């Protein structure tokens, strides 16, 4: 798990994202960046903030030397590429930098090469490589002007995207680094602060819950695998892989919510990295919704050049779609390798490569077999969408197994009943996922209507506004619905399982109430009651909307910060004053 750049970024840092130290630092950064005037002073401010953040990652500055050396070499390469303007030179420089990256990351293929004789950090190196290669290639091809050294350092080391992205293009970053943004309106502050709160909730609560489940489920699964219990193995593997997929999503998307939210507050807009990935219609569609900036980077700097090269060599009208499938395979295979340094990521690469290629071939061949209009009609069917969506996410969940197993466990999975379990789990997750997706599609408008979200269609929206605006019912009904739903979920969780077996009645009731309250409060902190509350406030006190929103954000923030302290503990800096 730790060998993935996502985890490398989220877990390796000393000033962890969920620490009170980071919160304090982020607040200081927002204030400084909002106050810093345009030009040199703003640039120096960003430079200083990046420096503080970077040095907080290490115990001694010497640990940063290899990383700093890599970034300096990167700038040297950009200087050469800018002057040479030669494809050959560009190729040599890119290969050289990737080679040094592989050496610094200690990939197994370079294990024989000597390394530094002191502990050093490569925190954020995976993302730094992408930023440097982007500038190097674009400058080398004349698409981008070479940035100044300080602008380059600010871009490469930008503290909000250093650890785990998003991978912003330099053209987007540069003007924001230089110009002071206009003062934000309260709606903008409100939405971005709410995003930060939601991000924390995703990482702290949902992240730890799903992580606990994954850790608990591993041993029983490998026991079942060892005893060739295929049916039980399918059940466990489906649960385990889906829980891991959720864990990765809530951690990574939560992280993005935090950094993008802080960025907007500070006046630096970062690109989105997720766009409702669980709504993906296909495996290809998934990559325009999941880790979007990474997909875009690979599309720009590997897929497109590769397809151009293949097209130039073998391209005909009929062959181009198939060459595209090959380019997809290569791109996703390389992208998977980038995710980790161990050989298990080759398997991940095979999974991703096969997934996109089969998907692409399906898109090419199905219209030929069924006819374009028939295929179009088939694709528009709801059941087809549900099955396709569930199959996409199930396949991704199984592919991500590479992130949580080691080589020995992978070998076990490849033997005896392993392939049957993999395939069975895929089918199980697809069928159950499609069923649940259908159920959600039917019930979602009603749920939205009850919760007062106002997205249940124009009729419901009008009805909601007419009946509830300005009355306490606007809030009371969603609150009651939320409490009842939480109580129902808690009851099912506790009584359908044997979680309370052996407990006395008072103890069972207290636990049930505690569960219900926690679920409801977590949903409130996640913003479930925001739309009806906002509607109520806008009709009752339109002139005080901003203050009321700030107050409500304080309530949500209080819940999340308390949870952060309880789960992460030790706001030790508070006591340093004594």
């Amino acid at each position, binding site marked *: 798990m730790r060998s993935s750049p996502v985890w490398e970024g989220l877990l390796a840092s000393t000033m962890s994202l969920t620490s009170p130290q980071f919160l304090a630092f982020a607040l200081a950064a927002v204030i400084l960046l909002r106050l810093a005037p345009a030009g040199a002073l703003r640039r120096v401010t960003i430079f200083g903030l990046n420096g503080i953040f970077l040095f907080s990652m290490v115990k001694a500055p010497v640990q940063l030397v290899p990383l700093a050396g890599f970034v300096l070499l990167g700038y040297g390469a950009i200087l050469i590429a800018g002057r040479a303007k030669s494809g050959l030179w560009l190729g040599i420089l890119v290969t050289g930098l990737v080679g040094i990256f592989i050496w610094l990351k200690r990939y197994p293929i370079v294990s024989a090469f000597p390394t530094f004789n002191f502990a050093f950090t490569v925190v954020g190196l995976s993302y730094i490589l992408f930023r440097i290669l982007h500038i190097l290639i674009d400058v080398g091809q004349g698409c981008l002007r070479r940035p100044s050294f300080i602008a380059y350092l600010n871009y490469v080391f930008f503290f909000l995207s250093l650890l785990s992205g998003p991978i912003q293009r330099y053209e987007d970053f540069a003007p924001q680094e230089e110009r002071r943004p206009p003062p934000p309106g309260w709606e903008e502050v409100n939405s971005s602060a709410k995003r930060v709160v939601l991000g924390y909730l995703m990482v702290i609560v949902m992240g730890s*819950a799903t992580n*606990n489940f994954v850790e608990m489920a591993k041993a029983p699964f490998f026991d079942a695998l060892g005893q060739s219990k295929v049916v039980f193995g399918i059940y466990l593997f489906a649960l385990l892989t889906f829980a891991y997929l959720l864990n990765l999503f809530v951690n990574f998307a939560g992280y993005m919510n935090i950094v993008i939210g802080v960025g907007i507050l500070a006046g630096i807009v970062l690109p989105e990295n997720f766009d409702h990935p669980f709504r993906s219609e296909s495996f290809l569609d998934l990559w325009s919704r999941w880790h979007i900036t990474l997909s875009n980077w690979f599309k720009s700097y590997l897929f497109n050049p590769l397809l151009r090269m293949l097209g130039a060599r073998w391209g005909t009208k009929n062959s181009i779609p198939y060459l595209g499938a090959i380019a997809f395979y290569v791109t996703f295979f390389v992208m998977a390798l980038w995710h980790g340094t161990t050989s298990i990521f080759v398997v991940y690469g095979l999974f991703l490569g096969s997934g996109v290629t089969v998907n692409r071939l399906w898109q090419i061949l199905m219209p030929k077999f069924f006819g374009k209009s028939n295929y179009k009609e088939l694709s528009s069917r709801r059941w087809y969408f549900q099955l396709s969506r569930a199959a996409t996410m199930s396949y991704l969940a199984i592919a991500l197994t590479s992130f949580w197993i080691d080589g020995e466990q992978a070998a076990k999975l490849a033997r005896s009943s392993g392939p049957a379990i993999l395939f069975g789990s895929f089918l199980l997750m697809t069928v159950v996922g499609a069923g649940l997706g259908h159920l959600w599609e039917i019930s979602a408008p009603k749920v939205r209507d009850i919760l007062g979200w106002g997205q249940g269609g124009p009729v419901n929206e009008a009805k909601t506004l007419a009946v509830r605006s300005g009355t306490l019912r606007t809030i009371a009904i969603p609150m009651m619905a939320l409490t009842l739903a939480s109580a129902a979920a808690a009851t099912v969780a506790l009584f359908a399982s044997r979680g309370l077996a052996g407990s006395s009645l008072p103890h069972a009731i207290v636990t049930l109430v505690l*569960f219900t309250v926690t679920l409801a409060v977590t949903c409130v902190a996640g913003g479930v009651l925001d739309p009806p509350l906002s509607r109520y406030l806008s009709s009752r006190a339109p002139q005080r909307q*901003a203050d009321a929103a700030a107050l409500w954000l304080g309530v949500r923030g209080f819940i999340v910060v308390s949870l952060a302290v309880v789960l992460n503990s030790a706001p030790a800096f508070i006591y340093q004053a*004594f």
Partner: protein
Amino acid sequence: MALARFLLISALSMLVLYGLSVVASTAAYHGLGLDHQLDTGSRASDLTFGALGASAVVYNRRPLIRNGPQVILIGSSNFQHYSANAIASEMPGISASNMAVDGSNLEDFELVVNLAYEVLPALSSGRRTFVFGLWYGDFLGGDGVGREALKSELTRYGLYRKVEEDRAILKIPRSTLPVVAASLRPLIIMQRAWETITGVSTLVVQDILRQPHPPAIDLAAQDEAASPAEAEKRALIERRSAVGTRLDDDVLAKLMPIAKRISDAGDRLVLVDLPLPRWHAEGVPAATDYSRRKQAYLAAVLRMPGIYYLDMEGSATDEDFYDSVHLRPKACMGLAHRLGRALAGLPAPGETGLRPLKPDPSHS
């Protein structure tokens, strides 16, 4: 400026909410009597600080800050439900606290004694009686659940700085400890709620994963719970025997410096041998090793002034236990009263001696 105003109002509302939750939690603590009694085995302590007791001994030491005579119980889970109230009721004019921590052993008792001395007023020196609830498990050594819990609680909110693996230093002035602990109450309650949810969730997940787990028997259900079946007894003897057949001499040696510290402070220490089911005491080699060696070993400790011994080993029957070491609440209450009566009859500080307590025939 919208940003500044917005963030300021949000921050203020967070602070106000925190302030209100401190007030509410203080009122709740007062209502439950937690601000004037530390008893890790009480329902109120379980509800707010958790059943382990580690959180209570770190964050609820305010009741120890009094000048009158007091009794302080220290032990592991099988000593937790010796009610402080029951003991105090047998000793008029003396207050009692129970600082027993689930899963702790003799090495952890030293830490708990230190925590007590950190807040005990110097003026009340010589008027305190520490009572150690002992069984062979306290002398086996190793890091138990109690050690981990205590270490984690000490540094959880940054009150202590870890200086060595088993040593932490208070970072704030001692006089501010009660105020700081009071300000942390909302977080402690939230932590307790979260731990409950995590604990029950773990059972739910174990069911989903079809993993066997023991039933979650809470305090109210312990009186009615069935005694261990023969198969469970055999499994327990096997498991306990695998941990070790002899007591750890290094751990045994730890008792001497702890006793010396208490004795030097002019306070009293009563070493109480706690009962075990007969099948357990006779079936586990370490238990018989303890029975064989304790007289000789404790004799050395008992030579110090203010150190006493009470033998309660045979004061309960097998039916009084709902598992292998823990007494049913009703039986535990009876023994707590007997312990209180025995403590009330202790000689004055300065006297020494081995004072075995015979099983009380009136005990049901």
